[in-house]
């Protein structure tokens, strides 16, 4: 029995540990929820490697497949459904809550970390070969799971069924049959009630960009407000440079863009 771990594991821990912490901090501090999810993926991948290093290859694989593969993708799906622009407000509802939470966090980390560090100093590493009976990790886990923990395993199936049914009930929208508007009714409503029956102008069509964020330009050079996409910050469109020489005046740029050509250099 030894206390100290191997060199390779030490290197893995000191490389991945800070990355893991950076992911967790990035998740808390990034304003955009999608960025938070990606930071959390980073942390979870590091934790998966830690499991593999700590003689739990099955849990490492499950961590990567179930957590980063399934759960985080589910989070991203819901973020896309809810809308990317619903990011956090900076307004503090309770005054001083952030500072109080930070103080609490530092104190909690200090207390728990120091307590654990003192309590587990000199903790011997028994290791798992005896527990696994020489069969490897997955047969060992399977044996325990289907003997000692069989009841918990079976109850888990009930839990999963309940969760699936619950999610379906919560996400389902009840509609009376026939209450859905037909295309004819929708079109009539649009023409009768709104002042703009036609479609909105596309973004950036008359500007120098085809990005969704670029607003369309009106003939006088102003931006068309109705072409701005919701949820995206409008982007400054670079105006076309004025042609300066006679040669460029014949080009397509001159025909598209500007009002009056600059005088030739000799004509001034």
């Amino acid at each position, binding site marked *: 029995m030894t206390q*100290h771990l191997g060199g390779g594991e030490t290197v893995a821990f000191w490389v991945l540990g800070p990355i893991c912490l950076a992911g967790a901090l990035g998740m808390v501090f990034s304003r955009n929820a999608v960025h*938070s999810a990606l930071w959390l993926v980073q*942390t979870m991948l590091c934790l998966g490697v830690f499991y593999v290093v700590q003689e739990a290859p099955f849990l490492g694989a499950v961590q990567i497949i179930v957590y980063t593969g399934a759960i985080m993708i589910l989070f991203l799906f819901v973020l896309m459904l809810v809308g990317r622009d619903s990011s956090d407000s900076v307004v503090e509802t309770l005054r001083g809550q952030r500072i109080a939470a930070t103080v*609490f966090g530092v104190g909690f980390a200090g207390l728990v970390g120091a307590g654990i560090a003192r309590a587990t100093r000199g903790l*011997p590493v028994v290791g798992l070969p005896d527990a696994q009976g020489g069969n490897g990790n997955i047969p060992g886990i399977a044996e325990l799971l289907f003997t000692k923990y069989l009841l918990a395993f079976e109850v*888990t199936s009930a839990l999963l069924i309940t*969760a699936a049914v619950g*999610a379906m009930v919560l996400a389902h929208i009840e509609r009376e049959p026939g209450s859905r508007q037909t295309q004819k009714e929708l079109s009539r409503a649009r023409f009768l009630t709104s002042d703009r029956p036609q479609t909105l102008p596309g973004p950036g069509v008359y500007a120098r960009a085809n990005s969704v964020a670029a607003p369309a330009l009106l003939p006088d050079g102003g931006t068309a407000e109705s072409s701005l996409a919701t949820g995206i910050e409008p982007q400054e469109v670079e105006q076309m440079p004025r042609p300066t020489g006679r040669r460029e005046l014949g080009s397509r740029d001159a025909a598209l863009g500007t009002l009056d050509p600059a005088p030739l250099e000799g004509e001034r």
Partner: protein
Amino acid sequence: MTLTWYLVLAAILFTIGAVGVLVRRNAIVVFMCVELMLNSVNLTLVTFARATGTLDGQIMAFFVMVVAAAEVVVGLAIIMSIYRTRRSASVDDVNLLKY
């Protein structure tokens, strides 16, 4: 290096998750912070399984993952239905009981 460092790392991750739950206002991000706390506890379980030489810790971590998956499915469905009625995913906007 000893196993203690894994436990300290797990404690710090748990704290970051707890602070995130307190600080963030977006319900989905709060949920992610809860996931981080569950993950850090899993790291503790795996570490102690290795230290004591039994597989029970790994089994418990496995069950925690299963429960977390079920919890995420139901929680995200609840957030979706709240968003559908209130057009907001912020935890501050769910305040009907206050008045």
